């Protein structure tokens, strides 16, 4: 998940030339040329492969992500930093995302790091215990936005919306064998998508990836999870601060996703500490707008935005939303998550389709998007805690 301030970019079309192929393992690879990019980034997106979070193993994917990201020799980040690059990893509900980035001239090091990342991880009781200690510390430092996202998803989708951070008690029961099994289930060709965002020489990148990367193979057919939205609800939490409203949407490039994103951006611009939270997914999902500094002003700002509605506001918000997405799709550090998640869910062009929808969005549609955050049409969460 990531927060979207009121953003945007412009210039030429995102995407550029794309080399794509499917490895014998079933892994799908895209090499996208983003001219003018200052860095190259390799985004490895690992689908859930139909492996659903459950109360008993809640957080196993997050724990595994921590362990995998270190690399089999536990020095992957050091190797990348030695050439001016780095690695980040995140666990989302519908995919895990590993991002290797650095200067394009370090192509060999970046691709070698990807190859290492795909090797089976070193797992032992001691390593798992150590990582659990880190996760316990992480849990205590989570901010309101992160906690709000977790709670709203659970309100909206129940067990199918469990917070990917996980449950520390459940994670405490994870054995090396269980995590090894999970790795085998997730890190297999059909469940993997690589999006390489590079400034130039796409053919050379493609050749290097073909030459150096060995994709794990399995015989499972990846399946897609299902989830359905529950009735709207309201909740309070003393663990967080602010007011948050979540509108359910279907499909990455659906009309309602486009409307809700534009409406949320408009609303957030009228708030102190306003934020929009959206995780790209082709499954039923949430667009969340948050007032992160108070639990009292969001409702008022929403009402004022509707009462004082001007078509020009809607047109501006639609433009903002389109420009914001375009900036994401042109950014080598961000584009891979969008295209990767869409591809692992089977619809690689969905981000471009969403961009087209946003560009065609009329003022009325933005108003409908804004209305989706009304008290009777959204999940509501407030908090006056820490």
């Amino acid at each position, binding site marked *: 998940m990531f927060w979207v301030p009121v*953003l*945007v970019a412009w210039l030429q079309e995102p995407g550029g030339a794309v080399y794509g192929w499917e490895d014998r393992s079933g892994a799908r690879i895209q090499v996208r040329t983003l001219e003018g990019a200052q860095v190259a980034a390799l985004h490895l997106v690992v689908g859930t492969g139909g492996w659903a979070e459950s109360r008993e193993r809640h957080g196993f994917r997050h724990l595994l992500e921590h362990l995998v990201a270190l690399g089999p020799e536990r020095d992957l*980040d050091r190797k990348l930093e*030695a050439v*001016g690059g780095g690695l980040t990893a995140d666990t989302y509900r519908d995919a895990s995302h590993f991002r290797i980035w650095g200067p394009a001239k370090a192509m060999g090091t970046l691709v070698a790091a990807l190859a290492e990342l795909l090797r089976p991880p070193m797992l032992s009781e001691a390593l798992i215990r150590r990582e659990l200690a880190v996760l316990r510390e992480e849990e205590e430092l989570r*901010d309101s936005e992160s906690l709000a996202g977790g709670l709203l998803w659970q309100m909206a989708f129940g067990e199918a919306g469990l917070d990917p951070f996980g449950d520390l008690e459940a994670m405490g029961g994870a054995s090396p064998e269980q995590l090894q099994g999970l790795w085998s289930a997730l890190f297999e060709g059909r469940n993997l998508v690589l999006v390489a965002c590079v400034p130039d020489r796409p053919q050379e990148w493609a050749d290097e990836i073909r030459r150096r990367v060995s994709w794990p193979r399995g015989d499972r057919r990846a399946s897609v999870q299902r989830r359905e939205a529950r009735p709207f609800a309201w909740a309070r939490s003393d663990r967080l601060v602010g007011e948050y409203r979540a509108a359910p949407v279907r499909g990455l490039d659906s009309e309602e996703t486009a409307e809700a994103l534009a409406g949320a951006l408009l609303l957030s611009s009228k708030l102190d500490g306003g934020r929009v939270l959206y995780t790209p997914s082709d499954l039923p999902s949430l667009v969340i707008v948050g007032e992160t*500094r108070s639990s009292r002003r969001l409702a008022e700002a929403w009402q004022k935005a509707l009462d004082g509605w001007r078509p020009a506001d809607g047109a501006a918000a639609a433009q903002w939303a389109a*420009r914001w997405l375009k900036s994401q799709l042109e950014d080598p550090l961000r584009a891979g998550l969008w295209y990767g998640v869409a591809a692992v869910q089977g619809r690689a062009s969905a981000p471009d389709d969403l961009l087209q929808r946003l560009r065609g969005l009329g003022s009325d549609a933005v108003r409908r998007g804004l209305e989706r955050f009304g008290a009777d049409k959204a999940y509501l969460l407030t908090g006056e805690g820490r």
Partner: protein
Amino acid sequence: MIAAWTLFVLGTGLRLVELAAPEQKAVCVAAAVRLPELSPKGVAAARALVEALWEGSAAYSRQRWLGEGALVGVLPKVELTDDALLIRLATAPGRHKVIASFLADLLRSPALSTEAVGGAIQRAREDHRSLWERAVDPRVAQWESLTPRDVARLAAWLLRPDRVGVAISGPFQPGEGRRALEVRLDDWKTSARPAEPPGLLGAGRSELPVGSSRFFRWTAPWTDLSDRGMGRVWLVASALGAGKGASLFRTWRVEDGFSYRQECRLEGTQAGVALRVLLGKAHGLESVPDGWRRLLAAVGAWTEADRLRALAVMGRQGPVPYRDGALALTGFDPTLLEPVDQAALAAYWALKTGRPLSVEAWLAEARATPLEEMKALALDLLSKAQSEDSTSSSNSG
């Protein structure tokens, strides 16, 4: 190659730096306002002033700022550090005159009506910063008896040409950016120097927050702001805290499972800069002294590979997806920043030192620092660092 800023000093004493950057996709402007040491009431007034400035000026509302920023995907920012108040704005190429007007108007005519400031005080007082943010700036604010008049007095005292540095960068011809700011700020003459705002200046107090996590902070002051001095201390900070290969991350998180978040920061202070190590910890608090000893041992074992890794991180170009430590100068890491952050750092540095920012010179000095010197400096700084923690505090942050 990192481009060099050019410094101009206007007749009013205002320092202006410009960088013509043809490859930049946005025009960025920034202002740094020098802050003195603030009393707890002064901290409250300054935080309220930040909130008030967010609302814009008489001529340009916050919605207009947001609209300009939206053209290039940059959210405007006003923030407070130990020794400065920083403003950052950006817009699309070709609009340097517009954004220069915004900045100049905000400095010269902020919207500080009693009503507006009253609202700003209320919002700032809520202080819903995250625990980590409060640990980064743990200055105590005293809100009782603070009035809109106090805030307005502080603003009048601070917002003067001789206390301000401004910066502009973007894809324009050399001199265009400077002229855009100069024409709007050259005649900024304030009336006779106002009296010091009563009760707002003076010794402050810090209390690290207490929440689900406790916080530990070690501070080592650094006063050598020459290129050589900055290059050396930045190298140490990077080896300690920049990236996941840095000692803080390797020792505390990867090897020990001791903590999730730990940072080494270079922060501006009244006396110069300070190297600060910050740790958030919820469990096993009694093991912190031992953790500190392990960190010192790791620094003592630094090899040439550590030095080269730190230099590689310092020299990397372009945006990065995260900031994970060694955040040079109050949250800035000069080579990792977006252009708008670079502009803010340039404005700050011109104001603080009277010299244009030259990250390239810092890098050259860092590269010329051998391993043994880097190690000795790090151990010296860490062994003398003053420690604070929130474990024995009874405040709730």
